[in-house]
């Protein structure tokens, strides 16, 4: 099992989030060709190699920051062997990465304009999740926390806060990537019970007809 891609398409935070607690080897390759190998286990980095073994936390954090801004590529191979690795480090990802930031201009970010949330996509706040935010993003969340608790789109927030739509989209995308906000699932949240039962029954009938 492998996941791979460019860090311009996936933030390092997203990659880490996808890997979760799975053990395996993550290779980060920068555009200049340097390759950083990491062994992961139970959401911890247990070994880092970049030409040599890295054993200092500060050095590891500094090396990781090179990949946060979206340069290079990644490849993760899950390890099927359950046996624990001999650890030279015991680092928590979340503490190593800098706080999520909200770029002030597209040029400062890896997020492509086409991948920003649609202006009318509705998001809700995940109240129970604590995340580290940079001051700009934190201030944005302070301003629109109440609206996001009820559910709001970039377009609505732009109108209510008198902020540029694109700036709101960047902020929402940054919050989305660290899972501080979440897109509303209208299907889950709006469907009433009788309608759900009716739908399920229709699904069963259609299933029977397709399988016939």
């Amino acid at each position, binding site marked *: *099992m*492998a*996941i*791979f*891609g*460019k860090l311009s*398409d*996936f933030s390092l935070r*997203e990659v880490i989030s*996808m890997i*979760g607690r799975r053990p395996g080897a993550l290779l980060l390759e920068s555009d200049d060709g340097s390759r950083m190998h990491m062994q992961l286990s139970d959401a911890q980095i247990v070994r880092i190699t970049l030409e040599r073994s890295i054993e200092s936390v500060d050095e590891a954090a500094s090396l990781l920051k090179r990949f946060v801004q979206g340069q290079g590529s990644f490849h993760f191979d899950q390890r099927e062997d359950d046996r624990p690795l001999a650890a030279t480090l015991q680092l928590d990802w979340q503490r190593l990465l800098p706080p999520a930031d909200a770029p002030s201009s597209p040029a400062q970010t890896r997020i*492509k304009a*086409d*991948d*920003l*949330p*649609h202006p*009318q*996509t*509705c*998001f809700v706040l995940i109240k129970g999740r604590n995340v580290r935010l940079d001051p700009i993003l934190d201030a944005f969340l302070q301003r629109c926390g109440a609206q996001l608790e009820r559910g709001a*789109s970039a377009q609505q927030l732009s109108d209510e806060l008198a902020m540029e739509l694109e700036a709101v989209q960047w902020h929402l995308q940054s919050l989305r990537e660290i899972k501080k906000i979440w*897109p*509303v*699932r*209208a*299907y889950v949240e*709006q*469907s009433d019970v009788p309608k759900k039962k009716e*739908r*399920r029954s*229709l*699904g*069963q*009938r*259609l*299933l029977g*007809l*397709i*399988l016939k």
Partner: protein
Amino acid sequence: MTKVPLKVVVSGPVGAGKSTFIRTLSQTEVVDTDERSSENIGKTHTTVALDFGQIDLGDYLIHLFGTPGQTRFDFMWDILSEGALGLLLLVACDRPGDFPHARRILEFVTSRQSVPFIVVSTRNDVAEKAWQPADIAAYFDLPLEQVIAINAENVDSAKRALIRLMQQL
């Protein structure tokens, strides 16, 4: 007897296999709106309005509507998804660079329309290096049963996507 019309929307980024999927499953001649691409999108022709096919299931007639993949046609996603029985979001398993765009489509539609959906991974038969359904599910933050890998050119395989969608209703 009049058949009950049901709408299933097939969406996804350019090159995910939406037109192929509809052509494979449709029992009637597919209406398509392919035009020569005016942008470099990796293929010569692309859907500019919609693809349309039908599956006759006795009392029910499933209308398959394929949305255009390019961002500038995004106003079509909402129009086509309104009142749909379900949404099939197609992604090519070997093109992870398209996943953020696919997620954008999915989140826009599902935050506005009460529509059940699954993510359908395509090109599994031809990809040299592919994301597995479990990894795609992790990216979209979905349970594994909401992601299925198919070959969009094979009727039985494509039908499995429709079956999985019905199981999600």
